[in-house]
């Protein structure tokens, strides 16, 4: 019984264990360079789009291992249209941002309609979208690069030179006080929520979590939050892109774990027929998943053009693969119905660390692809094999 519990526990935290091991490996391989504040900041801002896209992709994958191949092209297209709106048409930033999000959602809805209501295979629909929106991006930009000059936009969504949350608490010297403050507040909130949840359960007589596991988990998570914010504070503070990433992760983490809509994604992926007979509109679940993917692709598009301070018809290539890879590495099932937002984020971080670690170590670009490919395969093999065993 205890042995079985341990096995389940190890299975549950495999990716975290792997992440720690990979981290240690690269700390050793790069002689600690990977933990430099500059590199931690880069890890976040370079991969901001991956976090956002992977979260959206998770919802698609949950519905039954369905993927969205068009996200890279949609990222590029929305970025291109946004660039034209801001630079050529001189629309105010706020309006441009809202229009870009609406555009993304509309593109998502267009694809979602065929997938959800006509049951055209998602692979085909999004393959089509991949071609269509890549082509349209080229048309919109006339094949040329469009520089994004609006500083405010770059500041808001950026990862460029100076896109950090201003340090209004500190003196600008030494540690960034805003970053440290945010880290501390986040920890305090997290602890309060954990304790309150536990007290509530006790009061209502529900079964409570094992206190060792509960407080252990709490301490580890707080330590990680403090470590990251401390590193960020040593550099220039919190990158603005991190704010968006956190927003997406928190909102979608909440939706998938706490709401009925979130539950429907898992149910459809687990057994669509049973879900339908339980009175749930399964078509609508598909529709929401793919519409939302378009919406998040638009956000990723903004992050991308802001980071590059330009819109180009080649942006976003292979972004879909980064997102899909993160999901599967993060424990989403290739058959659907299984996967969590925190898991996907761990998957994305793992991919990011492997990327960055190898870059710092000076590994050949082509070799990097080989390693990433093998990691992806290993993750899915692990998923399939561990499922077989549990049957």
């Amino acid at each position: 019984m205890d042995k079985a519990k341990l096995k389940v526990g190890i299975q549950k935290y495999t990716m975290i264990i792997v992440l720690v091991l990979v981290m240690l490996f690269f700390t050793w391989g790069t002689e600690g360079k990977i933990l430099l504040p500059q590199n931690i900041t880069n890890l976040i801002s370079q991969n901001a789009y991956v976090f956002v896209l992977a979260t959206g992709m998770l919802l698609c994958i949950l519905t039954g291992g369905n993927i969205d191949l068009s996200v890279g092209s949609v990222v590029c297209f929305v970025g291109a249209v946004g660039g034209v709106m801001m630079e050529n048409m001189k629309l105010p930033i706020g309006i441009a941002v809202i229009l870009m999000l609406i555009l993304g959602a509309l593109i998502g809805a267009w694809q979602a309609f065929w997938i959800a209501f006509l049951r055209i295979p998602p692979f085909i629909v999004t393959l089509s979208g991949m071609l269509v929106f890549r082509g349209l991006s080229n048309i919109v930009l006339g094949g040329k690069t469009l520089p994004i000059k609006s500083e405010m936009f770059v500041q808001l969504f950026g990862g460029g030179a100076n896109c950090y949350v201003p340090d209004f608490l500190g003196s600008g010297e030494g540690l960034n006080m805003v970053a440290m403050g945010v880290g501390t507040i986040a920890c305090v909130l997290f602890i309060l929520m954990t304790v309150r949840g536990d007290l509530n359960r006790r009061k209502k007589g529900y079964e409570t979590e094992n206190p060792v596991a509960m407080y252990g988990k709490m301490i580890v998570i707080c330590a990680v939050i403090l470590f990251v914010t401390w590193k960020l504070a040593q550099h220039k503070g919190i990158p603005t892109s991190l704010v968006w990433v956190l927003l997406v992760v928190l909102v979608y983490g909440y939706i998938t774990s706490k709401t009925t809509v979130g539950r429907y994604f898992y149910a459809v992926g687990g057994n669509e027929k049973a879900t339908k007979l339980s009175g749930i509109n399964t078509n609508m679940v598909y529709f929401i998943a793919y519409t939302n993917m378009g919406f998040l692709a638009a956000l990723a598009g903004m992050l991308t053009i802001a980071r590059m301070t330009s819109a180009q018809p080649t942006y976003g290539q292979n972004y879909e693969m980064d997102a899909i890879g993160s999901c599967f590495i993060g424990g989403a099932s290739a058959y659907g119905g299984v996967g969590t937002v925190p898991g996907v984020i761990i998957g994305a971080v793992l991919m990011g660390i492997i990327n960055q670690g190898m870059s710092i170590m000076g590994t050949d670009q082509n070799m990097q692809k080989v390693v990433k490919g093998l990691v992806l395969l290993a993750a899915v093999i692990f998923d399939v094999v561990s499922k077989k065993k549990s049957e």
Partner: protein
Amino acid sequence: MAKILLEMKNITKTFPGVKALDNVNLQVEEGEIHALVGENGAGKSTLMNVLSGVYPYGSYEGDIIYKGEVCKFQTIRQSEEKGIVIIHQELALVPYMTIGENLFLGNERGKKAAINWDETYGMADQYIRQVGLTESSRTLIKDIGVGKQQLVEIAKALAKNAKLLILDEPTSSLNEQDSQALLDLLLKFKKEGMTCIIISHKLNEVSYVADKITVIRDGSTIETLKKGVDDFSEDRIIKGMVGREIADRFPKRPGVKIGETALEVKNWTVHHPVYSERKVVDNVSFKVRKGEVVGISGLMGAGRTELAKSIFGKSYGTNISGSLYLNGKEAHLKNARDAIRHKIAYVTEDRKGDGLILSNPIRINTTLANLDAVSSRGVIDRDKEYSVAVEYKKKLNTKCPTVEQNVGNLSGGNQQKVLLAKWMFADPDVLILDEPTRGIDVGAKYEIYCIINDLVAAGKSVIMISSELPEVLGMSDRIYVMNEGKIAGELSKEEATQEKIMACILRSSGKKTGKANA
């Protein structure tokens, strides 16, 4: 006396928790048509699966002696090499391939790297002429009817050089004319020296075509009747099939008051979702009252599940017509959600396929049909959900370590309880239970009967679809017998017997067969 072609000696096959076959003996002579009859779940198909190698040697006890030698088949392929070919109830043809391609699937003509298509179609044409098909063998399977598809299956068996042909319910999806043609084809093959084993529920067909009939009941062979020696009448066969004693296997239900009509269906007709000209449910009217258990009996394929699903928010079929009344008021249920809102629940016969999410824990499965009850404004109260799951686990005595256990890891009986819990939590007034005790052991069955009793005692209505006659008789206040999409009879608890139910079914199919023959 003719040579014994096949002998199965003391075959015993156990599945986890169930003894499907218990010391079964079967002797088949060369050149005869041997029928296997018995109720659903009696073990006929299991026996044939043992014979054909679906269950490999070693997974059962006993010997198979074929043509004088003991056979130890590991795969279907090995039994086919010996000339034993089984045709399953569900046709195993690929719809988007031609007749010829299907005929030689896995047995292709020509070389491995170069299929000889001329030979394929040439030979296929010969084989399908033998079974009386006039189509070209280049026709796609999807373009011919079910009856002809069944003939293609037989031609496929011929192409495998079959010496012993096993047909599992070959006529269950055929109309009378096609059935008759198929039976005559079997008689023709018999003259040519082919040996056949046929499994069938249609006793009139069995007496027409068979030389010997072996009756299987509860996993044991009861008797073998010979044509010309024994009485071959349907009544005699039924007696063999159902002749078991019904002990006190059903809990009593004293003092439950039967109230007003809760659900009534009038002139309900449902068409097949793909072949929309086919009526799967044909002008059915029935009702169930508060506190009443109504049984719907009938053979597989009688349209009972389809009736239930179509009532449950049109979850099956097209062109549904007829009217549905809940507590006397007409209701139009557009989808499953609507049905649940109108307090109807449908507990599926296929708990793994249509009922549960096997990869999810008990907790999530329990609340899926009524998530609103454990959430406010779309946010799930996980703790409340947990306590609901625990409550039902206790109520139904589900055996599991915790409610966080994945449903896929539970036994059939416990899965069935989770499924019941899910629908009880949806708080319905009318529960439609489709084969509620299929594939679960006797103890769990009894518990489920007790749950049914509790439900009606609380004023709910239960419609119980079951293929097991004793169960229907033991549990129902009233019984409807369905056959071929129609209500073939209504029996009160007092007048219902197994023989009467069987007679209802046979009478209604008999009528039609008679017409077709005339």
